[in-house]
């Protein structure tokens, strides 16, 4: 039963304001006119909180990108806004030394932004963010989480809360769910077929903004488009399965035409009102509509090809665990014919995770093929993938069990437990098949799945698979904890928790139905769409906070050998 009465959101513009104030505060610590150097990947985030006129107001004269070259700035004061990376700091040292060498006196200030996701170094940043949300919108009524990073983040946050002053505020957010990316690598490795996810897969959305090239704009220019709910066209299709998007868009086009057509038969006065009140909006909508149609066409070209359909089909087979041999041959051919380096790698990983590792023979032969196709340096890629457990050789299940029981006899239970933990983390085995059964992740395939009226979250993968991450969230919220999910958490390597927060808000208030989901290690647009669907179905509103928006290419690119 769909509940339509989803609660409204707290005022999140506060966060923007806080960030901007903080930036201004930092800039003002170097009083007077100055030039600002900013690392290019911080440009978009900066755009979200402060525009050029804000910067100008605080005495920024010129803005430069960090380009690792000698500076041409003539200002007596330089301010650097960078990520804490050794390379960048060394460059700043070079700038300073160069000034010194020519006897030039300047003042310098470095503003470090938080470490970018990559290892546990960002855990504190995340804990800090949670603390900020807590102090602005908290207290929370309940916190759930799974995964070791979630637990560390939670603990760090709690420490902060205990030390801080606690004023009584009305709770604006109900519960919080922290989830580690390594709980579920399957979902981000799947091809995305929901509109926003597709846009990200194909055009790469950066900081809520996408750049459409000439093939989409059908002009010689590229256009940057902000993708958010203020774009009315996008808002209606972002969560839709791609097969529905064209229908929506053409309906929209017709509506727009009707709106334009109203002009016929208007008198002067009506026309005047029309022009001043509606025309601008219509034109804007028109512009966006044609962009989204262009984008959809471009997607169609790429994704309706035979190859892609086959790929999707193979992907679904992997998720369901059918026709594995055929899938392996498919992947092999995919590699042999060099269809796509990243796609092949993605399928390999998906195969490994869903099958709990590859048979030794396949493992060797597929890797050999891959190296032959794409070069020997991917030996390092495979080493990285193995370390993360994304592409591994099947361990004889017996070997582990035998070892466990042997060890178990030697030491007492508690230690044995620990050792078992160690073993399972050593192997980092995925138990996808068992999880899929227990959580019913793959809907029965004999039923027809109507993608226009989805009945569950599986619609984001054409009805083939309910994302594990979102299913966990659904189940835990439903059960108000992990009770009854013991089998599942064991398979997921544990570190689950459910604790009550400080809020004493009424259980049925609006705020209680606002759920903050914190993805540690990134989440995909498809997952966000799935959660939006879940929210509509169950009367929740999800607020998703993530260390990054990710997708299969971003995930795998970071692991390519000889990369960094």
């Amino acid at each position, binding site marked *: 039963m769909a509940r339509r009465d989803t609660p409204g959101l707290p005022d999140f513009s506060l966060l923007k304001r806080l960030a901007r104030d903080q930036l201004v505060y930092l800039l003002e610590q170097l009083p007077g006119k100055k030039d600002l150097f900013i690392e290019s990947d911080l440009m978009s985030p900066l755009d979200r909180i402060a525009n050029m006129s804000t910067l100008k107001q605080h005495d920024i004269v010129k803005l430069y990108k960090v380009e690792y070259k000698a500076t041409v700035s003539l200002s007596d004061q330089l301010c650097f806004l960078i990520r804490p990376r*050794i*390379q960048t700091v060394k460059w700043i040292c070079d700038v300073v030394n160069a000034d010194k060498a020519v006897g030039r006196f300047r003042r310098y200030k470095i503003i470090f932004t938080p*470490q970018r996701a990559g*290892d*546990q*170094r960002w*855990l*504190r940043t995340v*804990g800090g963010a949670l603390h900020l949300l807590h102090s602005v919108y908290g207290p929370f009524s309940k916190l759930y989480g799974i995964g070791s990073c979630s637990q*560390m983040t939670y*603990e*760090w946050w709690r*420490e902060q809360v*205990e*030390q801080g*002053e606690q004023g009584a505020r009305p709770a604006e957010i109900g519960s919080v769910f922290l989830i580690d990316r390594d709980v579920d690598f399957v979902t981000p490795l799947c091809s995305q077929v929901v509109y926003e996810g597709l846009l990200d897969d194909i055009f790469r959305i950066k900081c809520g903004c996408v750049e459409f090239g000439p093939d989409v704009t059908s002009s010689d220019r590229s256009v940057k488009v902000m993708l958010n709910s203020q774009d009315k066209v996008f808002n209606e299709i972002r969560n839709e399965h791609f097969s529905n998007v064209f229908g929506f868009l053409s309906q929209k086009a017709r509506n727009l035409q009707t709106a334009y057509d109203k002009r016929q038969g208007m008198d002067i006065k009506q026309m005047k009102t029309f022009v001043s009140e509606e025309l601008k909006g219509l034109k804007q909508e028109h512009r966006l509509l044609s962009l989204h149609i262009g984008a959809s066409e471009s997607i169609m070209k790429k994704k309706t090809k035979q190859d892609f359909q086959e790929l999707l089909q193979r992907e679904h087979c992997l998720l369901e665990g059918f026709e594995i041999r055929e899938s392996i041959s498919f992947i*092999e*051919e995919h590699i*042999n*014919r*060099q269809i796509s380096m990243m796609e092949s790698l993605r399928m390999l990983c998906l195969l490994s995770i869903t099958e709990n590792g590859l048979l030794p023979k396949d493992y*060797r032969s597929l*890797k*050999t*093929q891959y*190296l*032959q*196709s*794409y*070069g*020997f*340096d991917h*030996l*390092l890629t495979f*080493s990285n993938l193995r370390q993360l457990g994304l592409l591994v050789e099947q361990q004889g299940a017996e070997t582990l069990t035998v070892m466990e029981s042997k060890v178990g006899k030697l030491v007492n239970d508690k230690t044995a437990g620990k050792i078992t933990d160690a073993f399972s983390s050593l192997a980092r085995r995925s138990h996808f098949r068992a999880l899929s059964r227990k959580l019913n992740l793959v809907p029965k395939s004999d039923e027809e799945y109507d993608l226009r009226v989805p009945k569950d979250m599986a619609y984001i993968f054409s009805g083939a698979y309910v994302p594990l991450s979102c299913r966990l969230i659904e189940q835990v919220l439903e059960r108000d904890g992990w009770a009854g999910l013991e089998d599942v958490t064991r398979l997921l390597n544990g570190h689950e928790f459910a604790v009550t927060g400080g809020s004493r808000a009424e259980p049925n208030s609006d705020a209680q139905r606002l759920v903050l989901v914190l993805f540690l290690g990134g989440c995909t647009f498809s997952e966000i769409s799935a959660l939006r669907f879940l929210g509509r179905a169950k009367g929740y509103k999800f607020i998703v906070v993530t260390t990054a928006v990710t997708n299969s290419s971003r995930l795998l690119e970071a692991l390519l050998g*000889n990369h*960094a």
Partner: protein
Amino acid sequence: MAFVTASWNPLGEAFYRKVELYEMCWSIRDGLRDSLVAAAPYGGPIALLREPLRRSPSSRPQLEIYSASGAAIASFPWKSGPVVQLGWSISDELLCVQEDGSVLIYDLFGSFKRHFSMGQEVVQSQVLEAKVFHSPYGTGIAIVTGSSRFTLATNIEDLKLRRLPEVPGLQGRPASWVVLTQDRQTKVLLSIGPELYILDNTSCTAVCPPGLSPHAGSIVHMSVSFSYKYLSLFTDSGHLWAGLSNLQDKLLEFDTKTTERPKQMLWCRRPKSQQPSVVLMWDRLLLVVGECNDTIQFPVEDPSVLVGEMDGVRIINSTNQELLQEVPLVCQDIFKIASMAPGALLLEAHREYEKSSQKADEYLREIKEQNVLEEAVRQCVEAAAHEYDPATQKSLMRAASFGKCFLTDFCSDPFVSTCRELRVLNAVRESGVGMPLTHTQFKQMTLQVLIDRLLFRQFYPLAIEICRYLKIPDYQGVSRVLKHWASCKVQQKDLSDEAIARAVCVKVGESPGVSYSHIAAKAYECGRTELAIKLLDFEPRSGEQVPLLLKMKRSHLALSKAVESGDTDLVYMVVTHLKNEMNRGDFFMTLRNQPVALSLYRQFCKLQEQETLKDLYNQDDNHQELANYYVTASYREKKLESSLSLLQNAVDEYNKAKNDFAAKATEEEMRLLRFQRKLDDEKGAGLLGLSLQVTMETLLSLGLHKQAEQLYRDFKVPDKRYWWLKLKSLAEKEEWEELEKFSKSKKSPIGYLAFVEVCMKYNNRNEAKKYICKVTPEQKVKAHLAVGDLESAADAAIEHKSESEIAAVLSRCSASDRLLVDRLNRASGAKK
């Protein structure tokens, strides 16, 4: 209460009163006569250096510290050099300026804290005179040296010595001088004979006080007010001049009729003064000279010291202490005899009410008729704040309380806060505590500072009481007190580490804002490392423990705490520290036991120290990673030989790691590289570094079929791959004959549909058709469709009776293919 006015003395329109603050607890008899005395303002402590000129080692001068009420705090013999001046800093530290220019700083309890010098040159020339002064920048010191030069330090916490320019014509010290803070600048005002000079950073300028008669004589004494706004001058002819310190205006001129230089001269003002005055003190006389040229004279019976305050002057002698001040206007209004002020009437009304007299009603009625009841209550509350005697305070507050009963919507906040503040003030004025603060001073110094003062004096229980009573948030209140207490507690030498740790833990518990690491740092400063470690154990935030642990050289513990904290910056901090501190072997061993630290260090090495990375893997016998390292390194080499030798190292390490797959892959890569190099040399093929696939592609496109074939065999390239490759390459170059030959060389491992499709890709339908016959029956339909032969596709589909194939053909049919569509539909229908 007629007696309230008994101590009032009229001065012009206003009144001055002397309020007794304390009977002094000390017994110093003639002590004040021959001592160097410094009493801090705001009811601060008093320091006394008896007989400062004594210099023989056998009898040293005694330095004594008292509270303002005369309670002894500390006393010790002065063993250092001769002292020129004593003074107090704003944080209750005693500054002792010595003749040689060094300044020794002691805390309230006489413990030496630190010292600094007013300049090297002073050691030779000696300090003739020094002044300790307070400004918005903190506590400052000014000296004049034997070479007649002035040196200033405006803030002793941030010491910057400023040597002022020479004063032309000055010999020795000037007859009189003061330090002035004006326009954010600190200057010296000095007199030489009748002349007055202002000395600032850059120059010495002669100035002239307006209206000072040129025959007044030499200026022998001067003084500035608490706020530096007013100046008074005394000449050797007994002439007193007072005016603005910027010398823009004269306020009064008065002939004291005595040529003797007063021992002390101070301004006596208060905020909103009606009648500011200058107080002069000689051996036997205290003279108050008002702006109106009116005076009050008090006899001085005992050697006394005057202490300037923002709202009066304290007079301290060996037996008692008084506050001389202008009676605040509101108190005058209420207590002046026959006053009809609203407050006075209300006080009277209440007094009658206490006596159950009906007159109470009359008074009240009178107030109400004038509609001034609210004003009356306000006056009583305000006056109570200014009164020192609790009984007077009470009667005023009771009157106010009585009056406000008859008021509707009266805001009682001022009443309540005055009540509270008076309780606090009465408590700190107690002789045992000895802080004779007026309400005005209290408001000026703020509660925070008052608590600090109590902390300096170690009145912890009282401070906590006050914090709780005034409901100060724990952070600024109780926690701050506890923090101070604990820092002090750890210095108690007579208690064991265990006992102190326990006491601290019991008292401090988990009070918010009290940092155990801060307390531990104090313990470590006092040389109690073991105690510090014990205290650190109570610190819940492991991150906070780290810096101190490092300082105490508990590096291993620091590392594990840093790891525990989850703060990677902290881990890096410790790791860098360890790296510099330990030898390499120990350093690696330490990291080995801390996987998180090790992995962070590895990441650092990956970016910064590739060589170290190798050593790390070596030590751990991590052959796999070591091999990976060699592979990565091989890509950085420009010379093939070096690359190959690195790859050979990788092979060895992979073998040690029992990773035969990787070893073999690496060996093959080496083989490929050699092959590529050879062909590059021979044919200039530009192959080096390409993948096997791309190498073969390139070879085929260059027409080097034999060499491609060789790779295919040597590297056991799967047939399928090779066939695809060759197929694409031949089609691309449109070598159709070659292609046909190739297709016949053996049975195609990739089938023949691929041939059809690739030919079509290069738009050669004829060639494509050649291969259709070879396509397996299952792929026939696809093949026909690929070349666009719908008829044949339809035939095959119908022959196969395959619904999906029929559908596939149908989907390609257009309107012109009516007949075909019908046929297909029929076949489809027949099947059903």
